[in-house]
């Protein structure tokens, strides 16, 4: 891979890694290159973005690199945050809230298992907004906090009770059945069967 391709790829990796960021080690594994080379390219890209006053920058936080905004744009993000087109709750917060609503009581770890990404920020936001609250402690190691929705949550969504939540219509087996039929189809597809084969099947 040439230098500029690698730079572009690293930019993409930083982008998809989101707020959690990505370590040089992980990047090196993904691109199958030496960590030192990766680090050099990363530093170069970081300097580039800054020098060209780009709208995105690279920040290093706790050993991981991630994309961030440019500090000089802060006043505009403030305006964006207040823009009526933006929903009050971020997508992450809303999703976390729905998980808590349907699976309560639930621990942070369990929420993260469902979302696949860290949920501490979203949980914090929801607690501050009084939409979820601590409802107890799980019996697991470390006695993690169990979260549930608050009364305000019900008011906010105009629900008489938590049992008034609409049925999410997701049956646990759904995906499984789909997967099984797909596998079956794959087996059948592309297989050239002669009538003799079919007859052989018949006698089985």
């Amino acid at each position, binding site marked *: 891979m040439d230098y500029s391709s690698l730079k572009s790829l690293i930019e*993409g990796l930083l*982008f*998809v*890694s*989101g*707020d959690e960021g990505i370590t040089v080690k992980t990047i090196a594994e993904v691109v199958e290159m030496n960590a030192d080379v990766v680090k050099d390219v990363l530093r170069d890209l970081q300097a580039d973005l800054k020098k060209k006053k780009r709208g995105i920058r690279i920040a290093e936080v706790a050993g991981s690199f991630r994309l961030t*905004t440019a500090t000089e744009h*802060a006043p505009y*993000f*403030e305006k*964006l*945050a*207040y823009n009526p087109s*933006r929903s*009050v709750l*971020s*997508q*992450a917060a809303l999703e976390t809230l729905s998980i808590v609503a349907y699976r309560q009581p639930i621990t942070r770890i369990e929420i993260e298992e469902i979302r696949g*990404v860290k949920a501490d*920020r979203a949980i*914090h*936001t929801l*607690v*501050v*907004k*009084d939409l979820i*609250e*601590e409802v*107890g*402690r799980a019996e697991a190691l470390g006695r993690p*906090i169990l979260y549930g929705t608050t009364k305000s949550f019900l008011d906010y969504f105009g629900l008489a009770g938590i049992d008034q939540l609409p049925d999410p219509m997701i049956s646990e087996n759904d995906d499984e059945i789909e997967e099984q039929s797909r596998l*079956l*189809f794959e087996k*059948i*597809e*592309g*297989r*050239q*069967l*002669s*009538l*003799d084969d*079919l007859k052989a*099947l*018949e006698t089985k």
Partner: protein
Amino acid sequence: MTVLYKLETFEGPLDLLLHLIDKAEIDIQDISISEITDQYIAYLEAMQELVLDVTSEFLVMAATLLAMKSRQLLPKPPVTDEPWLTYEEDDGLDTREELIRKLIEYRKFKAIASELREHEFERSQTYTREPVDLEPFVPDVPQNPVEGLHVDDLVRAFRKALRRVAGRNRITAIQRDEISITDRIRDIATLMRGRADDGDDKLLFSELLGDEVERHEVVVTFLAVLELMKRRWVSCFQNQLFDEIVLTWTGREETYDGLFEPEVPY
């Protein structure tokens, strides 16, 4: 005859029939109706062998085709130039027209579906990320954490506490302990943080006052609470007038390096 079948799955009789027509397109002149009907039936049999779901819809189509085939075997009336002499089987015509219409329409959606399949793949090749949390850019929480509550309400609650204090300590020696607001803020924050760590983020205003309440202490505590509210370390609510003020630890104090002096030098 050993006919090679590429066994595919068909979404329904229309899908299967379209497949047969597609094959027929290669050399449409050579297709005979009996062959197509036979192929259709053979497919159904093959599907049954593979324990695929041969639904009633497939069987209905088979019956339709067989009816057409049998009609072919019947002797035809001679075709003449005189239309009124030509025997028309209305039922058969309607069935055929309807089937053609359905096939054309179904084929159209099948084409769209395959185009969407390409879009699906292309889209699966790009990734994006969650929006950045804009909360840090917001100097104020857009929603007032004490919404619906006026400072008047707090003042009234405060007066109530004062009256109660006054009732208990009509005669008291004024012994001024120097409690600074900053100290009181720190005490309240420490107390609430400790409780929050134990899983209880709520606290009653009265719990902040000792058994022997002094006016001075109430004032300082109240001002400290106001300061904490302003900094959004706590949020407060009151169910009704003169009721207890319930403080909730928001956990937002981590965004500050430490205590800073209150704006107003008390």
